[in-house]
């Protein structure tokens, strides 16, 4: 890994973390607004987070 790779990996991590953070935050908002739909929201949140995570990992391994 060269220095640039490290920077790239860092950028990916920051991006993925921001994305997942947003998902988590929005999910919390959604649950606060509609507590009765929390199950569905959690599922959707986990799937979305997992997809971003997947991209993040894929990019990290490519880096």
């Amino acid at each position: 890994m060269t220095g640039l790779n490290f920077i790239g990996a860092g950028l990916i991590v920051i991006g993925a973390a921001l994305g997942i953070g947003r998902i988590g935050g929005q999910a919390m908002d959604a649950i606060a607004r509609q507590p009765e739909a929390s199950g569905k929201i959690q599922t959707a949140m986990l799937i979305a987070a997992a997809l971003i995570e997947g991209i993040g990992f894929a990019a990290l391994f490519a880096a």
Partner: protein
Amino acid sequence: MHRFLGHYYLSDMQNIFSLKTICLLFVFVTTFSFAKETKAEAGENDIKTEIKEYIDHHLLDSYDFSLFSYTKDNGEHVYVGFPLPVILWDDGLKVFSSSKLKHGETVAEVGGNYYKSYHGKIYKTDAEGTITYDEAHHPTNVKPLDFSITKNVFTILIVGLLMFLMFGSMAKSYKNGALPKGMGRFLEPIVLYIRDDIAIPNIGKKHYKRYMSFLLTIFFFIWIVNLLGLTPLGVNVTNNIAVTLALALLTFLITNFTANKSYWGHIFWMPGVPKLMRIVLAPIELLGIFIKPFSLLIRLYANITAGHIVLMSIIGMMFIFKNWIGSSLSFGLAFALSLLELLVAALQAYIFTMLSALYFGQAVEEHDDH
């Protein structure tokens, strides 16, 4: 790269579960680990390399089941555990006990061929056990096809046996009445959860039964194996890319072999979009078929590996800090992380199962809306 994984992994969990404390501790870790790197003394360096080697060794598969090892005063390594069979395909089947390899310290002679293990892999060598390296320090010796019952294979076998006994007895307990007894009381809600909250919503009431066996098996397998990875036994099945690849490959095969016409229609000739877009979309969708299981395998592998690396690094830090503040802090951190790892063990099993179910659902979904 490992630290980045840990970094990312932590921020992931923290966001999902809003663990502010973890966030704070995480800041400490990074500060300390940077501090650790900047003031490298000669003595510390030794411990650090030793820890690093230990972690590397811990993450690797091995040919025997060693519970722990220590070094005697005279420099002799003592391993506590038991050997496992080595099975090689090298001009015919070669089966011998891994005790012959002596953890890479000696050369094993089987049927006129000489083998030596080096960094968890068996290489064919000459009688002296010479290993030649290329410029990147990779061995250039011939690697025979290796079907050994390694520590991981052995663990998989044990877990399979355990699951068979557990669920077999659970199934039997239904014969005496409508309610399960013993273990089943604890396992039944999980089985029902997978059926009612993973399989049915994602696959649909019509088709879910076909996939239940796979989903249940994969969930419990990943979960148990992840939990075993947290025990001091030192078995890490899911941090092998080969294991996660096998699991993801099964999901991939099942998805594509049970897919209906509408699924393939949506991949090669997306309905409801202009013709030109269809041509553009087809290769993307086709790529998606492979990316989906690939992300599955990488996610499981990376989460577990990252967890292990971070946890073991923090445990290792206890020995690097020679003062009580640093050591007790790393102890607390290691404890908190272990708890988090318990959660991750279940969460990763859940996500793998969930996404598999989602893919199966896409494969059998009937689109009558267009």
